[in-house]
């Protein structure tokens, strides 16, 4: 139990970082209605790009920005495969993800991982977020505002604010309309190919940024760091929705719910680990949990239909499309 409590700040920090990726997944999965599997690759692309650049002495902010841009590029590739080449979205994502495996290795000079130097105080001070800061703040060696929860929390708030603004603009509305009803969008003069590519770029940019932050936090990038990322992202989106859908109706709050969903996910994982589960079973556990949550709404509609619904068939169809 004590283990669990001491591990809690770390779990929350990590949850916040993955939460940024989950917000990216929310854009494609919820707003564009595309299950984009690129994220398993682009998460690592972000981490690898950052680790290599930062290791080479590039400014931290510039390295983060480039990681974001490279992530957007991966989304662009998936978008082109989907719209220009007419490949189904899910397959386009898988193709990009597969290709990125080699690209990610190439970025890291064909090594399976690249570490960020945190051995001395000077190099540690250059970092924005680090696992070590969690302990340092706890010991009082660093001010509270260097705590990863605070720093990544600010990142998350800024990202939510920007997205809230963007999806209220004409272009953002066009993107949402594309996901809601592509036929209608085209009839209203929206170039749905363009909005789909844009959404995929935005999403993967955030995913790569999240990967860059994680690489910084754990002080290394690893070729396997993005494996199963889509499942974690979906878990965060679904957990956030299940818990907060009745409370949060505002778009910004919905994004916040996704971030909280990711934090809860990591707290649960931490709890399960504290109970002594072999960490190799984590992926199976994640898959089961997400599978269960995806199945619940379906089962609810199929087996727990109240009798009155038969009369109100129309309103049922309506609410399902809401």
């Amino acid at each position, binding site marked *: 139990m004590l283990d669990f409590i001491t591990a809690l700040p770390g779990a929350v920090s990590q949850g916040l970082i993955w939460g940024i990726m989950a917000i990216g997944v929310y854009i494609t999965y919820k707003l564009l209605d595309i299950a984009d599997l690129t994220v398993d690759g682009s998460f690592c692309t972000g981490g690898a790009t950052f680790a290599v650049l930062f290791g080479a002495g590039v400014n931290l902010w510039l390295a983060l920005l480039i990681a974001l841009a490279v992530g957007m590029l991966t989304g662009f590739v998936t978008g082109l495969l989907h719209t220009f080449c007419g490949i189904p979205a899910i397959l386009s994502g898988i193709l990009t993800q597969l290709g990125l495996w080699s690209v990610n290795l190439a970025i890291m000079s064909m090594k399976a991982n690249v570490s960020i130097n945190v051995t001395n105080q000077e190099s540690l001070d250059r970092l924005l977020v680090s696992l070590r800061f969690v302990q340092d703040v706890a010991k009082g060696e660093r001010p509270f505002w260097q705590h990863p929860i605070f720093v990544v929390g600010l990142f998350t708030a800024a990202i939510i604010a920007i997205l809230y603004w963007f999806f209220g603009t004409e272009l953002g509305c066009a993107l*949402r309309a594309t*996901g*809601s*009803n592509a036929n209608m969008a085209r009839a*209203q*003069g*929206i170039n749905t190919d363009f909005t789909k590519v844009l959404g995929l770029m935005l999403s993967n940019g955030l995913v790569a940024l999240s990967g860059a932050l994680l690489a910084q936090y754990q002080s290394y990038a690893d070729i396997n760091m993005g494996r199963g990322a889509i499942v974690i992202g979906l878990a965060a989106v679904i957990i956030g929705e299940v818990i907060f859908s009745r409370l949060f109706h505002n778009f910004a709050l919905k994004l916040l719910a996704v971030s909280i969903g990711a934090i809860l996910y990591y707290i649960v994982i931490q709890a399960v680990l504290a109970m002594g589960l072999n960490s190799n079973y984590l992926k199976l556990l994640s898959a089961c949990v997400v599978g269960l949550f995806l199945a619940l709404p379906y089962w609810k509609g199929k087996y727990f239909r109240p009798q009155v619904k038969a009369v109100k068939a129309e309103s049922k169809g*309506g*609410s399902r*499309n809401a």
Partner: protein
Amino acid sequence: MLEIKEIFKTFNAGTVNEKQALRGVSLTLNDGDFCTVIGGNGAGKSTMLNAVAGVWTVDSGTISIGGTDVTRLPEFKRAKFIGRVFQDPMMGTAPSMQIIENLALAARRGQSRGLGWGITKAEKERYHELLCNLGLGLEDRLTSKVGLLSGGQRQALTLLMASLQKPRLLLLDEHTAALDPKTAAKVLELSDRIVEENHLTTMMVTHNMKDAIAHGNRLIMMYDGRIVIDVSGEEKKKLTVPQLLELFSKVSGSDEADDKLLLS
């Protein structure tokens, strides 16, 4: 306003499912014409409308709207000229977005969309007023999701959306077919009103011969991918359903076509 010249379209060419949907359709609509389109299933009514809207490109022939050749323009670019209401009430609106957001999207049809606000304050007042005129009580539900509306309400909303940014051409594709008779009559009445108020050039596909005769100033009937009957003006005003049926069997050369048309 609309000029269709000799358009052909074949689906699934070279397979057993080959279907020659349009076989040389030509049609010219004048500014302000309200043309109703009838015909049996598979006659090519919807196909013709989709060809004009640009859902896909035609195999040959040309289409121009208001003097602009749109034959090769993609659907989203043609939207600048065209307002559409579909048969399926689900098709014309974005269900997960608010009523007001749907209206704002439609008000920007054919304009470039940038980083300005998706809905401005002045717009909100305008939409409130327009929805008041619609008389469906939607003005109090501006921020409701469109997915919660009934089929009839959605079609009325789609009609309003199609006319927000005055289109050169309004395409109504059996837009009352999925509604109950009472609601259908209301939506038709609203269509008439909107067409008249905005002086819109309109094409309306319908399965109902009475409606086809009662509305508009011109009537065309399609059969087997061609326009076989084209009446307008005084001649159309005097037209009755039995006359129309007789005319049709003469043109198509068979009596059984009557049943096909009536049953469909």
